[in-house]
C-alpha cells in the first residue's frame, strides 16, 4: 500500500516537472497564447477591482517606506539644491537658445512625443513579484488599441514597451528588465548608445556602446534616439526623456564604452502610464 502511494506520488511529480518543461518549450518567446488570454479575460476585472480596493493600503505602506527614505535624502537634497540654483541661471540661457533653434528648425515645441501617436492611458494593475523580471500589467489591452511593441511613458519619461496584449490587459516590459535595450542619445552632446538595465537595481542603468572619443559627464540628459533606416524604424519615437547620467568615469568610458544613468521614471512605483499607440507602424 505504502509503496503504491510512493510510486503514485513520484509519477505525479514527474508528470508536473515534464509539464513545466513542456510549457516552457512551447510558450517560450511566443507572446500571449489562448490560455493566457482566457485566464486574463476572466481575472482582469477582479484584478482591476482588487487593485482599486487595495490602493489606500498600498499607499499607506509606501508612505511609511518613503518617509523612512526621506530622512536620509534630506541632507543630500539640500546640497543638490544649492548646485541646482547655480545651474538654473545657465539653464535659462540655454533654454532661450533652444527655443530660438527650435523655431529655426520648425520643430514642434509642444512636447517630446511626435504627432501621429495616439496615447492610451492605462493603470498598473499587477506587477511581477520576483527580482528577476521587471514587468507590469496594464488594464488597457487590444480592445483599447494597444499593440505589441507600443512604447509606454509616464509623466517623467520612458517606462517600457508593450510585450504582449490580451483584449483587456497588456504586459509591459519595463526598461529595467534584462531583455530591454533602447537606442538612446545624450543631449546636447549627441553621443549615441544603447540603454541597458542593471538587473535588480531599477535605479541604475547603463548607456552602452557609446563613442569613447566623445566625452560625456554626469548630469547630462539621455533621450530616445528614435532612428529610422529605410523600412526599419525604432519602436520608440525620438526625444522621449529616459534618464540622467549619474556616473561617467573616463576609464569606464574609454575601456568599456559605457556610462551609468538614473531613469527619470520611478519604475518601482508606477501607477498611471500612457501607451503611445499608432506611430510609425
Amino acid at each position, binding site marked *: 500500500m505504502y509503496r503504491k502511494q510512493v510510486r503514485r506520488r513520484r509519477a505525479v511529480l514527474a508528470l*508536473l516537472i515534464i509539464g513545466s518543461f513542456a510549457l516552457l518549450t512551447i510558450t517560450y518567446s511566443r507572446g500571449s497564447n489562448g490560455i493566457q488570454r482566457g485566464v486574463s479575460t476572466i481575472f482582469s476585472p477582479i484584478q482591476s477591482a482588487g487593485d482599486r480596493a487595495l490602493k489606500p493600503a498600498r499607499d499607506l505602506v509606501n508612505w511609511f517606506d518613503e518617509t523612512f527614505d526621506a530622512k536620509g535624502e534630506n541632507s543630500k537634497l539640500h546640497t543638490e539644491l544649492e548646485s541646482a540654483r547655480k545651474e538654473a541661471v545657465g539653464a535659462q540661457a540655454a533654454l532661450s537658445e533652444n527655443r530660438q533653434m527650435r523655431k529655426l528648425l520648425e520643430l514642434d515645441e509642444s512636447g517630446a512625443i511626435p504627432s501621429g501617436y495616439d496615447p492610451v492611458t492605462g493603470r498598473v494593475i499587477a506587477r511581477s513579484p520576483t527580482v528577476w*523580471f521587471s514587468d507590469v*500589467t496594464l488594464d488597457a489591452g487590444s480592445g483599447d488599441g494597444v499593440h505589441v511593441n507600443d512604447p509606454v511613458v509616464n509623466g517623467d519619461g520612458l517606462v517600457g514597451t508593450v510585450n504582449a496584449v490580451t483584449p483587456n490587459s497588456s504586459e509591459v516590459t519595463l526598461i529595467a528588465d534584462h531583455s530591454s535595450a533602447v537606442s538612446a542619445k545624450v543631449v546636447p552632446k549627441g553621443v549615441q548608445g544603447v540603454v541597458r538595465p542593471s538587473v535588480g537595481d531599477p535605479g541604475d542603468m547603463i548607456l552602452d556602446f557609446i563613442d569613447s572619443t566623445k566625452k560625456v559627464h554626469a548630469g547630462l540628459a539621455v533621450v530616445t534616439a528614435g532612428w529610422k533606416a529605410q523600412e526599419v524604424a525604432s519602436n520608440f519615437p525620438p526625444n522621449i526623456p529616459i534618464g540622467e547620467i549619474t556616473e561617467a568615469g573616463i576609464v569606464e568610458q574609454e575601456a568599456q564604452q559605457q556610462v551609468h544613468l538614473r531613469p527619470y521614471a520611478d519604475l518601482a512605483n508606477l501607477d498611471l502610464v500612457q501607451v503611445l499607440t499608432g506611430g510609425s507602424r
Partner: protein
Amino acid sequence: MIVTPKIVVRLVLIGILGVLLQLTFFSQVAVFHTTPDLLPALVVCLGLLGGSLTGAVSGFAIGFLLDCLLIETLGGGSLVLLTVGYLAGLFRERFEIHTSLVPPLLCMVLTLFAELGFGAVELMLGLDGSVSPLVIRQMLIQSAFAFVLGWPIYLGVKRALRPALVEEPVRPPRRPRRPTVLGA
C-alpha cells in the same frame, strides 16, 4: 491531509486569493526598496500541511496562474513553485515540526531557494543584461519578509484546511510524581 472535493475547492480559492493578493498588493508596495513575495511562503505552508503531493500540485497550479496573469512564458513559475511545495511537503513527511519557528524558518529558506530558482530559469531562457549585486540584497530581504509572513500564512492556511487535517495525538503533560519518603 484528507483531500475531499470541498477541500480541493478551498485549496483552489486559497491559491487564487494568494496570487491576486500578491499581484494587486504585495508586488506594488516597496519596503526597503523590495517587494515582498508571498507566494513561495504560501506554497511552503500548503506543502507543510498537506504533504509533498499537495505541495507540488499547489505550487504548479499557483505558478501557472501567476505566469498566465503576468503573461510570462508559461512553466517557469510552475517549475520553481512545485519544487518549493514538494520540498516543504517532504520536510513534513521526514521530520517532525517541533516548534512554531519551523514554518517561518522554512518559508524563509525556501523563498530564498525560489528566488534563486527564478534566476536559474531566467538564465536558462537567456539572461541578457548585467546583474546588479543588489539582487542578492533584495533576495535576502524577501526571505526576511517570508519569515515574518510565514507564521500568519501558516495559521491562516491551517485554519482554512482544518477539516482535512489529521491531528496528531497530543500527549497529556506529565504530572510530577510526588517524592516517596522511604520508611514512612
